């Protein structure tokens, strides 16, 4: 079989760039909210993001051969020509893309949360973070919470899921912003 000199260089460049952006943002949020060390949080962000990206690739590589001809046409058009609207924008394609985006977001969140939990358990830091593993909150604490001021112990244990979803949302937003900037820049130069 003959191979054309067409290489996915841009995929690699963009992927590395977006991974770096996501890792920096997520590591910052993890460090701030979970009070992890600098190196640890970068490491966690790196591993969770890599896991997410690999999962995404596996899904793509499995789904693409199974997709129907029209969907494959759209995929090819988007990948090779940056042109998603072969047969015009319809409500159906819009809806489909929206559902895909939501699905991707929550899949990424799930993978990151599970991966982070796994790594925290491996490092024996999980028990310091998960409030449900601790003994039930004392009556005084609950009273203090009801009065508005969080007790000291609880203030140091921010909600783990909350942090992960915040980190995920932040990195997704920034990457989307970068993509948007790229689209705007392309329109500008034309």
């Amino acid at each position: 079989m003959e191979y054309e000199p067409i290489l996915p260089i841009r995929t690699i460049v963009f992927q590395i760039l977006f991974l770096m952006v996501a890792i920096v943002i997520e590591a910052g949020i993890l460090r701030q909210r979970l009070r992890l060390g600098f190196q640890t949080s970068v490491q966690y962000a790196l591993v969770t993001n890599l896991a997410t990206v690999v999962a995404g690739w596996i899904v793509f590589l499995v789904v693409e051969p199974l997709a129907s001809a029209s969907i494959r046409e759209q995929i090819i058009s988007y990948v090779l020509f940056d042109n998603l609207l072969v047969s015009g924008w319809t409500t159906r394609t819009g809806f489909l893309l929206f559902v895909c985006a939501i699905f991707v977001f929550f899949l990424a969140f799930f993978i990151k949360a599970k991966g982070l939990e796994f790594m925290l358990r491996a490092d024996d830091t999980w028990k310091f973070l998960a409030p449900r593993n601790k003994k039930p909150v004392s009556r005084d604490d609950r009273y203090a919470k009801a009065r508005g001021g969080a007790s000291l112990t609880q203030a140091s244990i921010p909600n783990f899921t909350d942090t992960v979803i915040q980190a995920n949302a932040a990195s997704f937003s920034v990457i989307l912003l970068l993509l948007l900037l790229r689209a705007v820049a392309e329109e500008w130069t034309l």
Partner: protein
Amino acid sequence: MQNLFRGFRDEIKTLLEPLLPDKYFSYQTLLLLSLFSLLVATAVESTGDDNPWAVTLLTNLSWIFFVTTVWWALEEHPIKVYGFSISPWITGAVLCLFLFKPWVSDTRFRWALTCWPLISTGVLALPKFVDWELKLKNRSKSTNKTLVMTTLINLLLSSWILFHFRVQDWVNNYPSLLVGSFDRSAFVYDFERGREQQSQGVPLLEEIAAEVTEELNDQPWYQTERWLYTRRSRLETITRRAKESLDARNEGDFWQVEVPRELRPIEDGYFLDLFANWTGPTSRDGSFYVQKTCRILPTDRPRAVLPQTGTDATQTDEPPPTSRSTVVDCGELAVQRQGESQQASQGER
């Protein structure tokens, strides 16, 4: 003379120095073993006796010795890029060559390249799991973390390689994609600038024109007119057949061949305009179509008549007995043009 000979011998000695082991327990010994197995294998093969089993065994042994040599040698003299050892990837490459023999077929080549990062990870990880006596080792937490990270990065590399092959598959299955430019793509970069790709629409229309010529040429004119009257269904059948004969048959769905609504009259005959529209993915404002025109003309041919006895009849005003037969002329090659064909813009879909 003696001196020259000695100098020559010394030269060879220094050349062979890195190959000869200082002690028996070293990678040079393995390298010599590998070469020895290869030598024996060629010897067995050249004896002419049909003994494929022995040859296979010996070549495999040679490969195993060679892979181990590379591993061992790189363990002793690691190759570092920015302080990071890339030895496992080299060993992995050699191991892939041995396991997949990628020169045999394209599928094997793909497998070899795709598995290369994963096998290299295995090469990297193996010494961390077992020691020289094949006993399980206790790993520290940081080693574990590094291993997880390396595995993930190598999975990502494999994904990129697979994606590359997927793109190659697309381009091979739908060669007319190459007509558009990939400049805007966010995923791939085309290293061949100014590619002058001919779309498959050209051979498609040529095939259709050849079939039309074959069906109509030398047919009586009245039959041709009937054919032209029912051209829609006729051309549909021909198109279906022509699409099957394309080099890349998957592409057939993306070609839409138009049947002309009006025939352009010329003298006594007609122009048959054939259009093939590319409906597949293209770059923005990069749509194109292929056009070809066939001239279908009647000619008067003298009918093969038996020589008649009465010569008077031919000398009257009546023309000699002729029959109108058809000449199809699809002279020039089909042309590929940018933009939408007129037929399509008229809403002839």
